[in-house]
């Protein structure tokens, strides 16, 4: 085992991660490997449920409220304060629906698809530092990892689309893939321009790199968030991200009024819930990535313990943005979408990369 290299991927950043934290709290770390494993699992469980809770809030309730607000209506308001308990009602309603499987759907692909969609989205959160020590793992290749796992979702989508044995589903699934691959590259290349600044792929490092102020005048200092440093990249990434998660104006894969509901046409009951959940998880994951690499992660005024709050604020802001666009911007056609991706964003992202590299090189 020669040199720093071989051991390098095993050592963590200086940040204390959630597993150890929980280990200390519960005293599980006294029980050797088994204890550690249990602690790790607990941590994962915590994060998983945190995300689940957020999507639960977002999906049935916040979404409706926001859309209603944009169209000047009052959405759900019967159950509980502001109708918050609609969440429970919806959960029960959806879970207790009959599961209708189309006659010539080919299983098990049809059954696996929802699990893949939901699970893959959840995986991404493993490496995202949410502040206040809510940070499951911090591998050196964090960013690449995030991009990788978020790519898995499109596999789930095409599985869903193909296995439902339905024209709309098929077209939807294909559209989803075409769209994902078209915008994957701009996304990654733009992310790369951030890596050029940070000089690392490790999430905690990237966040740390954004900590110190960029400029400070008149007492208040503008943090060195990469959204500020390189707004061009920020915008690019934002757009590409919307396309990735398939939100307006890029929601062609589902495109109600075009192809009934795209790949999820034939899904009902719990399967539908899972896919739905997966989509929202993806929105949040995208938000998480943006927040981490462009908005300084959990950074914000006040003590560091508030990190998680700031982080959640940030990702909710981005969620708000998606809903805003959903009600404000019309959908692009599939051909426009593809051509925007290949002829527009791809070129722009490369331009951004080269520009960043040159500027960084010249400044340094």
């Amino acid at each position, binding site marked *: 085992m020669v040199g720093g290299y071989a051991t390098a991927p095993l050592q963590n950043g200086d940040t204390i*991660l959630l597993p*150890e934290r929980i280990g200390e709290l519960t005293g599980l770390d006294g029980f050797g490997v088994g204890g*550690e494993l249990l*602690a*790790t699992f607990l941590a*994962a*469980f915590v*994060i*998983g449920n945190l995300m689940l809770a957020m999507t639960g809030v977002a999906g049935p309730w916040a979404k409706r409220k926001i859309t209603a607000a944009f169209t000047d209506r009052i959405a759900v308001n019967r159950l509980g304060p502001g109708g918050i308990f609609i969440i429970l009602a919806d959960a029960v309603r959806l*879970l*207790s*629906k*009959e*599961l209708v499987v*189309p*006659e010539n759907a080919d299983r098990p692909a049809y059954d696996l698809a929802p699990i893949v969609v*939901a*699970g893959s989205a*959840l*995986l991404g959160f*493993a490496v995202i530092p949410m502040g206040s020590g809510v940070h*499951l*793992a911090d*591998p050196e290749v964090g960013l690449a*990892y995030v991009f990788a796992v978020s790519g898995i979702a499109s596999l789930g989508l095409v599985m869903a689309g193909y296995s439902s*044995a*339905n*024209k*709309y589903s*098929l077209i939807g699934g*294909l559209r989803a893939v*075409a769209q994902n*691959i078209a915008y*994957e*590259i701009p996304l*990654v290349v733009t992310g*790369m*321009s951030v*890596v*050029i600044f940070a*000089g*690392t792929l490790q999430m905690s490092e990237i966040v740390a790199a954004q900590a110190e102020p960029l400029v400070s005048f008149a007492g208040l200092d503008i943090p060195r968030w990469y959204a500020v440093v390189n707004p061009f990249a920020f915008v690019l990434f934002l757009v590409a991200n919307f396309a990735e998660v398939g939100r307006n104006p890029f929601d062609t894969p589902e495109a109600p009024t075009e192809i009934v509901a795209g790949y999820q*046409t*034939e899904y009902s*009951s*719990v399967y539908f*819930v*899972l896919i739905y959940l997966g989509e929202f998880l993806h929105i949040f994951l995208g938000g998480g990535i943006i927040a981490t690499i462009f908005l300084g992660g959990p950074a914000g005024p006040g003590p560091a313990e508030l990190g998680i709050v700031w982080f959640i604020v940030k990702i909710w802001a981005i969620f708000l943005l998606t809903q805003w666009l959903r009600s404000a911007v019309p959908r692009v056609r599939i*051909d426009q979408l*593809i051509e925007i991706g290949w*002829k527009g964003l*791809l*070129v722009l992202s*490369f331009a951004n*990369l*080269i520009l960043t590299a040159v500027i*960084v*090189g*010249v400044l*340094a």
Partner: protein
Amino acid sequence: MNDWIAIGALALVGLLIPLGMMAVSYLLRPTVPETSKRATYESGEIPTGGTRVRFNIQYYTVALLFLVFDIETVLLFPWAVVYLDAVESDSVSLLEILGPMLLFVAILLVGLAWAWRNGAVQWAQTPRQAAADSDRQ
């Protein structure tokens, strides 16, 4: 504790939650067997034709294009990571660290330009283009 074990744990959770929900709904939901509702959904009409429709060839071309362009990012990542250190260290000149990437991207862009001009990323074609292309097929 190894990061990847933690990630594995999360994957486990990510698997358990859906399964759990499935289990729950399995307990809750009714089953009313009725063939008509299992028919392929085509807005309530009688399903016509096969469901494996032939779709635009462009889906393939775009996919092939993606294969190539996505892999090139793999080759760019290491460069991006070391770039800052390399620039700050005086051992290598800027050209040495920047040049190769520029060349690499330039070649890629030549490829993209070619694909672009030859309609690989062009989704819909006007009849005139189609006519012009027909001799190329």
